[in-house]
């Protein structure tokens, strides 16, 4: 990209050309088609090789799908038939999941916003600090959520608190990544204008960049809220409460209609959140 920019500098070739004049202008030669096919083939081959390696590693058996697909049908049919009578019994767990999701999202969003600004090249000119923040955020993201939950259960004990803390760690990872990437891609014109008016980076980021990424931030926050509701199923596995525990209970007794009801409730929340997110984005943009 950068080399192309220099090459197109008009004055680079401009002056001498002009001297030519006259009608006999030499037709600009057609460039040869660059041989990108080779590079593409190499990339495709590498991807195929990785896929083959992974496929052998996990023993892919497509024939089994053709042979046994009908095994899952009965359960899937049961899962499409929720037991509405079960709704009242889901309320306490649902409430706990919502509480955990709301709190975790609120804390996660509040902590992530400044971190995202520190983690983006567009808003943090201080390279060493940038690298440190990015490294720590990579670290935070690479720990599986179930492990956060397991360790936090050991540290702070069983219950909503460890669940919330696990979700917060998880949320920070997501929001910082997505928002700092949005910042990287954001048009920095207004920020440049603020800097040109003598503002410090902090003030320029606040005044010029924050409003620009607010829609992204809002939608990512809502997205993490959705994830938090869904992750409660994982968090529940280690005893951190919420819908996860309930799901564990009903599925271990093959109460698929009740499981279906829980999934249906999650679905409603997912859909409502998506609609709200779309609406909010439209308002903010």
């Amino acid at each position, binding site marked *: 990209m950068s080399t192309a920019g220099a090459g197109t500098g008009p004055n680079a070739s401009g002056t001498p050309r002009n001297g030519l004049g006259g009608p006999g202008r030499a037709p600009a030669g057609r460039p040869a088609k660059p041989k990108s096919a080779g590079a593409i083939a190499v990339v495709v081959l590498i991807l195929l090789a990785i896929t083959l390696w992974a496929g052998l590693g996990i023993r892919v058996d497509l024939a089994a799908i053709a042979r*046994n697909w009908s*095994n*899952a049908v009965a*359960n899937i049919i*049961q899962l*499409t*038939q*929720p*037991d*509405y*009578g*079960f709704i009242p019994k889901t309320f306490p767990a649902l409430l706990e999941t919502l509480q955990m999701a709301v709190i975790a999202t609120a804390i996660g969003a509040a902590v992530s916003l400044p971190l995202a600004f520190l983690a983006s090249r567009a808003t943090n000119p201080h390279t060493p600090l940038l690298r440190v923040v990015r490294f720590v955020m990579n670290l935070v993201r690479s720990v599986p959520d179930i492990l956060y939950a397991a360790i936090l*259960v*050991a540290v702070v*004990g*069983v*219950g909503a608190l460890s669940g919330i803390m696990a979700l917060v760690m998880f949320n920070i990872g997501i929001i910082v990544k997505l928002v700092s990437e949005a910042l990287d891609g954001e048009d920095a014109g207004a920020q440049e204008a603020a800097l040109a008016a003598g503002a410090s980076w902090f003030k320029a980021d606040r005044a010029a960049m924050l409003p620009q990424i607010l829609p992204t931030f809002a939608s990512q926050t809502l997205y993490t809220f959705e994830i938090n509701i869904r992750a409660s199923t994982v968090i529940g*596995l*280690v*005893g951190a409460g919420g819908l996860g*525990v309930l799901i*564990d*209970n009903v*599925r*271990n*007794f*093959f*109460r698929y*209609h*009740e499981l*279906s009801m829980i999934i*249906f409730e999650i*679905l*409603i929340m997912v*859909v409502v959140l998506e609609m709200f997110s779309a609406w909010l984005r439209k308002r903010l943009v």
Partner: protein
Amino acid sequence: GVLALSSCGVSQDAPAGGASGAAASGPCAGTNDDAAAAPKELTLALVPSGDAKKLVDTVKPLEAALTDRLGIPVHGVITADYQAAVEAIGSNQAQIGMLPSLQMSQACDKYGAKPVLQTLRKDKSSYAAQMFTNNPSKYCTDAPAPGPNGMLYCNGTGSGDGPAGLDSIAKVKGAQVSMLSPASPAGYIFPIAALKAKGVAVEDISPIKVTANDASVLAVYKGDAEVGFSYWDAREVVKKDNPDVGSKVVVFALTDEVPNDGMSVSGKLSADWQKKISDAMLDYAKTPEGVTALTAIYQITGMKTADVASLKKTQDAAHSIGLG
């Protein structure tokens, strides 16, 4: 999708037809499919009740012995999830399952998997679930005394025959309790049923969820929980790594006897093969190597033909606490 779902709601407890109807009428004896072709290989699903890492090592001799006796390859897969094991057997993805009593009944009710064998431990085909604590002064009415294995028991629990010491369990109210998934007979169903009988509801205790019996012991041993549930006596598994577990963790109550776990075989095998498998296992359990290997896996000392009626006790206990 929303509309499609809502249009066909059903009640979970209405009999939906099929195999599950069997739960209401007497014990389930399983089915077979005599038209089924002979299997070319078999999968053995094990739900660990101990350290799965050790299970991996001890399951090898079992695989080899069965392969040897049946003439087709048998390989073992460990799953920590009860539901996964039952579904695997139900769909003939696993043909043999080493399962707790409740899952044997479930696999039979739901998919017709035949309960063929039950394990014997110290020649008993049932065992008690135990409650233990690291705070004996609170739960013991007498001084803890060493049992035959040298570990401490109080409230008359040393014999291992349940029920015993249930009068002191009401004190569990409000404590941190380590327990297994609600599908575990000894790690959840029987203790919770016993507590319920004494007027303590699940909501009255704060649960710490673990997924194996020795983990439950360890949680109490390490002080994460005050009380724990497991089978009798899961401390023996832990003792190897933590010799002082017998003195730090004291058993103070035993529940009603729980039917032993056992072996189910897929209902999609022919009766012929079901019998072959069961015979092979019985035969292996009689050999000295068999006893060694099975002891290493589950402290099993022998096998006997499954008592289908006794299996149902677990389901009944589960029903009594609103599960199943």
